[in-house]
């Protein structure tokens, strides 16, 4: 009896100690929140600049961001006008030419990579700082309706050093089907691995693979939905090595050329539900559910003896 009393007392004190530990944990964690600064939303894709203009300045982190401040949804024609205005509004001190572009979709199923393999040449017009320019290629993929990019996947790729920088704009909801979602866009920055000095022409190539995912397309009659991609927008941004681009030394130019005019548009065929099956599917689904439910109910009531005169107990 004495041992049982001691065990009961030990159990009670252990229980009290457990609750005390929980209270200490809650207090410490609450303190951590209370004493930390509230610095607003933590957003992987935001930079600290809040541009007031309707076009992006050259030195702003993401060229596309300002477009989405002005427009609710992505439209190809208005975005192309926006890019033209961005280029006109920013100095072009480095001239870039697209020599070749291979744009295609790699992989199978609902998760693929949008591949862009481009060859380019760069020639600076004039350099204010003779120590050399660092350039980056800005690749902007305007994704069609029915395809989305996962911003957190891109964050992981940045951490692994695949891209210098990346952002997803537009509809980033990962779960909705295509008829309930809008288009999105991926902007990726790839460092050009060379110092650019005045008078020297530089050529290079870069291969980029962007992970993209298919949304559920609208139901149809033939079982598949076909989606086409537009060619990516390619920009070159250069600035003085070692310093963040400032408005004085930043140069923005379009990488254009007559590369591969005959290439067909990249397309993606995605499985879709078949509309004509809707009634049969619904009927069989409900019937199966009701049948399974009835079986479970009958067995339960029999086994437990409820409703004895209707079900004989086994």
């Amino acid at each position, binding site marked *: 009896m004495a041992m049982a009393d001691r065990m009961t007392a030990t159990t009670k004190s252990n229980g009290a100690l457990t609750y005390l530990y929980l209270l200490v944990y809650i207090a410490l964690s609450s303190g951590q929140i209370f004493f930390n600064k509230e610095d607003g939303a933590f957003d992987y894709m935001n930079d600290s600049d809040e541009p007031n203009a309707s076009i992006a300045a050259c030195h702003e982190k993401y060229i596309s961001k300002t477009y989405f401040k002005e427009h609710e949804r992505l439209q190809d024609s208005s975005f192309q006008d926006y890019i033209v205005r961005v280029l006109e509004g920013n100095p072009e001190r480095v001239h870039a030419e697209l020599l070749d572009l291979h744009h295609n979709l790699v992989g199978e199923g609902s998760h693929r990579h949008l591949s862009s393999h481009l060859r380019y040449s760069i020639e600076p017009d004039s350099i204010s700082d003779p120590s050399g320019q660092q350039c980056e290629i800005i690749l902007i993929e305007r994704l069609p309706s029915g395809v989305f990019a996962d911003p957190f996947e891109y964050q992981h790729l940045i951490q692994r050093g695949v891209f210098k920088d990346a952002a997803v704009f537009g509809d980033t909801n990962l779960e909705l089907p295509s008829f309930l979602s809008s288009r999105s866009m991926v902007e990726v920055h790839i460092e050009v691995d060379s110092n650019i000095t005045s008078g020297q022409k530089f050529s290079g190539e870069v291969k980029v693979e962007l992970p993209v995912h298919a949304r559920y397309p609208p139901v149809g009659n033939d079982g598949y939905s076909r989606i086409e991609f537009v060619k990516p927008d390619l920009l070159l941004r250069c600035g003085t090595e070692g310093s963040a681009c400032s408005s004085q030394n930043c140069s923005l130019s379009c990488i254009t050329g007559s590369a591969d005019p005959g290439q067909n548009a990249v397309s993606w065929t995605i499985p879709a539900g078949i509309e004509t099956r809707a009634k049969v599917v619904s009927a069989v*689904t409900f019937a199966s559910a009701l049948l399974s439910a009835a079986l479970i109910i009958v067995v339960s009531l029999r*086994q437990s003896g409820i409703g004895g005169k209707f079900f004989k107990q086994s």
Partner: protein
Amino acid sequence: MMITFHFLLIFSAIFRVLLIMYGEWQDGHMEVRYTDVDYLVFSDAAILMSSGASPYNRATYRYSPLLAFLLLPNASLHPSWGKFLFSASDLLVGIFIRDILKMRGVSDMPCLFSVMVWLFNPFTFTIGTRGNCEPIVCAAILWIIISIMKGKVFQAAFWYGLVVHFRVYPVIYVLPIILILDPQYLQSGHMPVLTPWKAHWPNQSDGVEMSNANFILSAVGSILTRARVLFGLVSGSVFLGCTWLSFYLYGREFLNEAVLYHLTRTDPRHNFSIYFYHIYLHYENDFSLLEKLISFLPQLTVQLALIFSFARDLPFCFFVQTVAFVAFNKVITAQYFVWFFCLLPIILPWSSMKLKWEGVACILCWMVAQTHWLMWGYMLEFRGHNVFLQLWLASLLFLAANTFVLVMFIRRHKIVPIFQLVYTKSKSLGKLE
């Protein structure tokens, strides 16, 4: 027995630590991550919370702020804190399983076997080490069962309110808990008397002192008892208190993401549920009230039938309710399976189902149906073939497998009320004197 159980626990703990370490290595060196995508969501939400921002700024964070709160050390201590917490909860479930079975008088070998069914289940040890939070819910559910078994109504109610705030699904247990808090079992100031386990139950009526129908009628007739009112008030207050605090801190975002989303979720994307294709084919049109009622009817009727049949055998009632709830749900993902995996060990000692060959048949049937579905899911998602019809038929087969397993467990289970009638016991003692 104590030495063997402790060895099991230590071995399981070391194994889980090694898995977590391996997971960190795989995340850093391989394209495919070991860590669950959801863990990254929780972790990001915790980092947001630690800087004073809303965890709901993290897309797809659809949980109580309490989860982000528990993972705050992810920001200040180590990003793997959450995995260690979930794996510790996983081990705690093993301890609670042992405690429940020992309290009910189960002998050493069946007890050890049941604990191993949880600790060595591959699904179990991967789910915590990958960063899934379900082990916390499982531990809370088992703690609630232990509290009820000890007659600690206030404690059970407190944790029940908390766990329903954390995860909505335990709301299905409210009715059997209310029914079991019967004055014929719980007398004020006394612990309830647990029905002892027996190795052999030759007679169907052994352990049943009152017919089920009489018990239900009696319980419904005297629904407003002290224990029931206390449970309702305390759990309701805790739930509302947590919900109000979360709403006060994070506003409508909390309500939309953490509560309404789960209550109204109809995901058209393929999952184990038989309803996924029906939802996808009708997603562009709103569902009529009749359609919503018809899809809810099987779930509701099965739950009520199971509750009224098995409420007195509380652990078994929880188990069958959970299996049925998952099987008839509009969305089924693999993590839901752990909700009934944690309850399976506490009912096994009362099952006459032998591993050879009924047990093996149940395991194979369930796993083959699941693998069959996964095969078609792979063809759709990773090979891009239109196999929606085949995938939907596979989900019907999976429902059939779940039904088969559930029916087998019900037929082979020895229904023994968890509590003995105190009133009848004292009457018997009176007669002896």
